[in-house]
């Protein structure tokens, strides 16, 4: 069984948020919910100043605190490592949200599925997409499991204009992911949280 993961090459990334919006349309998330985001930051002082772009999504942690915190088992991990929420079992206690150090849990609060682009009524697109969510439950990035299961790459990956996002099998010792992780200066987010993220970053 593969261990799915992602490498994000920060040298390539231009902070465009195409991933953010691609995820938005793929998953049809309600207003304000973004499984993919780009953390935008200005570092330094003029004229020695940089802007850094850090695209983030669920790390599908090997040692996922969200999973351990979930009292119902609604959060589960597939054998390929994808961490998902079964929203039929979720009670909306938000323990997972409090436990994810990466802010990658999203709560579908009451009323959110009634409001789309407009406050009164949903667009045909939203009618289809919102039907996949349940109010009062937690949702999150699925690594596009529905695509992956069809042999497709995640939506944020295929759209990335700079090909900064590389998706694949972390178990392949000489696969593209491990090679990049080995050969470039690589790291994961908040290692001190000991979550064993499966999204790796390559230095700028």
């Amino acid at each position: 069984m593969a261990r799915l993961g992602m490498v994000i090459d920060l040298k390539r990334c231009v902070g465009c948020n195409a991933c953010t919006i691609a995820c938005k349309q793929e998953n049809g998330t309600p207003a304000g919910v973004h499984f993919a985001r780009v953390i935008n930051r200005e570092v330094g002082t003029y004229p020695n100043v940089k802007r850094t772009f850090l695209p983030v999504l669920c790390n599908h942690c090997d040692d996922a605190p969200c999973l351990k915190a979930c009292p119902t088992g609604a959060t589960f991990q597939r054998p390929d490592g994808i961490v998902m929420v079964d929203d039929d079992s979720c009670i909306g206690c938000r323990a997972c949200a409090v436990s994810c150090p990466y802010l990658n849990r999203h709560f579908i609060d009451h009323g959110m599925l009634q409001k789309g682009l407009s406050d009164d009524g949903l667009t045909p697109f939203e009618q289809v997409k919102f039907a996949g969510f349940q109010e009062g439950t937690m949702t999150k990035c699925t690594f596009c499991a529905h695509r992956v299961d069809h042999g497709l790459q995640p939506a944020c990956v295929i759209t990335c204009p700079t090909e900064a996002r590389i998706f694949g099998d972390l178990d392949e010792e000489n696969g593209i992911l491990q090679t990049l992780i080995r050969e470039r200066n690589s790291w994961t987010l908040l290692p001190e949280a000991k979550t064993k993220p499966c999204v790796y970053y390559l230095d700028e």
Partner: protein
Amino acid sequence: MSTQTVAIVSHRFGYGFYRQAWWNWLIGSAFFFGEIGAGFFLVSQLTGNFTGMVLGYLIVMVGKNTAHLKFLGRPMRFWRAALRPDRSWIARGIWATGLFGVSGLALLLKNSGQISLSDSTLALANTVASLSALFIMFYDGFVMNFSHAVPFWHSSLLPVLCLTYAALGGTTLTITLRELQGVHDAYGVVLLRTEFVLLVLNLLLLLIYVKRMSSSQVAAARETVRLLVKGPYAKVFIGLVILVGLVATLLLSLAQNQIQQNWLAVVIATCELTGDYAFLMVLLKSGLFSPQTAPAYARG
């Protein structure tokens, strides 16, 4: 690179600390009711005060549970929360609450003569009720401290603090109840001493907690301390939690030792419970997530 101060951001696209906002006042209230209710029940049980047991039981079973259910996105499925006691403190808490509900009810019915229990059953009910009450008094500390994500909560002192606060609350409520009932027995002095010890202990633990967090390796924990001590929550934390909830109560209970007045007992209880509630609320509100950035830029 300069040393730019890290801000608290209001959305997840920003770089900076991010406020814990998922657990709100309903969770704070549930924790509060759980702690003081179970504490009340336990202390009343130990001092043989039936009314206190009833009140403590109701605070837990009605107060805590209502707040929890109101908070849940899907309250009808609440029972699912009990499914993973092997890994979740919430699940364990549910089990404890369940056990407390059954054993406590048995005790109350027995005490009020509604049912009769065999000695062994009664002993079992007593033990289970005490232990589950005890569990309810501190498990919320584990629920919070389980989260590494909010570094300020991630301290082994937190469950201890919850326990001592619960014990304090329970003791205070019991004393007050007894004062109002006009009960005067051998427990009176013990309770007052316990109260005094707990107040001092709580104050010490709280100071140690904050002191420890202020020199934490993790910036988010230090930032929370700043929020509590100098920032927007300083009024609540120093004013309500420390001064009203602990220092004032400490002084008042010294006076109470001398004069033993009904009204004073009520004042002390009000101060103490206010401090307790404020502590839980401020704990939830000031929780921060760490900023995420590349190691190269970690230091601004």
